């Protein structure tokens, strides 16, 4: 239905608009500006058109970082979504244990992100970390565990940290989705003699579609843009085995001060995230659509 239009309301939006313009739109335009020019120094810039874009698109280190990023985000989704669903299914529905589990689950979400990186560094240290000491004392690894000793260790630590940090979000979203299902569906399923697996497949999972869409999109976008945790944990190493797109971008921009290529890269980065989010969204929407219209 069309809502009533009151033109005076636009004036209330104006301050927000001004702030957003200053903090987002103008800087964005600056980035676009940089991506099209080669800047030698203040006031000395040459218009180079799409040169930076071409350079970035053919940069092998960019391709490596991109590949690593996809791997990372893929693993994140593969682990966090099912795990979140399982935790939500296991959570209690009534009584004081509900609040207790919700609070426990929310704790990882409240910790500042680079502090999380530090927590996991300490946790995996071979001298004082619980995990580091523990796994080394088992003596099953040829190279003693340290989070930067080998690429695989770095990845394992990174994934563990990421899953520990963000699965609670997925679990909370799925829990909300599950709680919204009317009791009658479960009663009907019991009466139909459905097994727990059938109940999950035919009732719980379809009805969680809305929250799962949100969970997938949020986790994909966040993990694709990840910076603070890997940087705090490994700094991008060992070597560049955990250099993800954003870490590479920051190195380019502030490390090497190649503003032109970095700006071009930012824009490409933005478009990649946009494209994949769009694909995910359409896919999840259409799974639902096939059932609504018939």
């Amino acid at each position, binding site marked *: *239905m*069309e809502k*009533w*239009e*009151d033109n005076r309301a636009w004036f209330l939006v104006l301050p927000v608009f001004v702030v957003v313009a200053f903090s987002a739109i103008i800087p964005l335009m600056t980035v676009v500006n940089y991506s099209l020019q080669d800047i030698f120094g203040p006031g000395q810039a040459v218009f180079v058109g799409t040169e930076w874009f071409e350079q970035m698109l053919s940069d092998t280190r960019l391709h490596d970082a991109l590949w690593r990023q996809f791997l990372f985000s893929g693993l994140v989704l593969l682990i966090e979504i099912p795990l979140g669903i399982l935790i939500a299914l296991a959570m209690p529905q009534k009584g004081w244990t509900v609040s207790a589990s919700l609070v426990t689950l929310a704790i990882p979400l409240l910790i500042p992100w680079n502090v999380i990186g530090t927590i996991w560094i300490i946790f995996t240290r071979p001298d004082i970390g619980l995990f580091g000491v523990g796994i080394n004392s088992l003596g099953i690894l040829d190279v003693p565990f340290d989070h930067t000793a080998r690429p695989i260790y770095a990845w394992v630590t990174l994934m563990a940290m990421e899953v520990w940090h963000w699965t609670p979000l997925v679990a909370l979203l799925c829990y909300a989705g599950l709680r919204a299902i009317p009791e009658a569906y479960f009663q009907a399923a019991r009466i139909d003699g459905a097994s727990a697996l059938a109940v999950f497949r035919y009732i719980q999972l379809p009805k969680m579609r809305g929250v799962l869409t949100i969970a997938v999109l949020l986790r994909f976008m966040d993990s694709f843009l990840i910076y603070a945790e890997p940087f705090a944990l490994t700094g991008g190493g060992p070597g560049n085995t955990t250099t993800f797109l954003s870490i590479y971008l920051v190195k380019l921009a502030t490390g090497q001060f190649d503003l032109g290529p970095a700006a071009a890269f930012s824009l490409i980065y933005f478009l990649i995230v946009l494209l994949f989010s769009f694909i995910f969204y359409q896919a999840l929407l259409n799974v639902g659509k096939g059932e609504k219209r018939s």
Partner: protein
Amino acid sequence: MVLVLQSVDKIVRREVHLKDVQLEFAPGSRHVILGRTLAGKTSLLRIMAGLDRPSCGRILVDDRDVTGVTVRKRSVAMVYQQFINYPSLTVFDNIASPLKLAGLSKSEIDRRVRETAAILHIDNLLDRLPAELSGGQQQRTAIARALVKETQLLLLDEPLVNLDYKLREELRTELQQIFERRSAVVVYTTTEPAEALMLGGNIVVMDEGRILQAGPTPEVYRHPATMRVAEIFSDPPINFIKGRVHDKQAQLGEAIRLPLNGHMAQLSSGPYIFGVRCNHLFLKSTSPNDVAVQVMVELCEINGSETFIHIDYENTRLVVQDDGVHQLKIGRGITVYVNPCHFFVYDPEGKLVTSPDQTCYTGT
């Protein structure tokens, strides 16, 4: 207040919610809008209230164009299906809320709230929260909140549909009495023909966004202008039989032949559709003009002291509503009697050609 809707349309993303609505509401009149779900009743009510703007057309209050005026500036009160109350306010505060916004004095607010609460029999619940009340009591609170404003327009959107059958009956009688005493224009929507008949006043029959017929309720009931109006405005559903007129006789199907008397005397030859309400078909002959029809029983539903008998006449399903308790077996052949003066006659396009006149109803 005289409310007029002129050529109102409401089209949302190529879906027609309302089309070409022309209505006029006289001051102090009562109107029931009858239609099936998705007929456009709620859309119409929202436009009358000022919550939505029509895509085209005008709304005039006392000859003033108020189409662009927001709902806050109009004198309107609305009651919804879903017992809408402020959950954190007590019943007293709920009812008082519109008066507080209007800035009346505390003593005046107190007086009016208690008065309205007494009318709706909730004056002993004033310090409770809506969550502590039953469905009927919550809806009474919502109605009290709408009444206390003493607006010129009172809109009710199927307010009783979520209540128990008996509660609905009670509240309906009370509402009738309340409406009598008000000088506001009252507009009430419903999907049940029985409710429309019980509330009386005027009726507006809607279907698919259009007004099919409007007028005093008994008149529209006795003279439904189209077959669709007759269908919507009947419960149990009206019976229709195809027939034709020729040789000074009306022939319905193979077996029914009616002489062309009374209101059917002027019918010209050709195909027609004949309609008759269930309560005008009987298991016994009640008048010398009755015509007997052989039919087969499909189902019997006993409703207290009357029975609905579903019959089959030449593959057309009909319903007979007769007094008394009849237990008839499925498949049994019986005779049904009908007085020809009770038939509505429609042309093949569905428009009313002739309807029973008054003498028929008084049994002369």
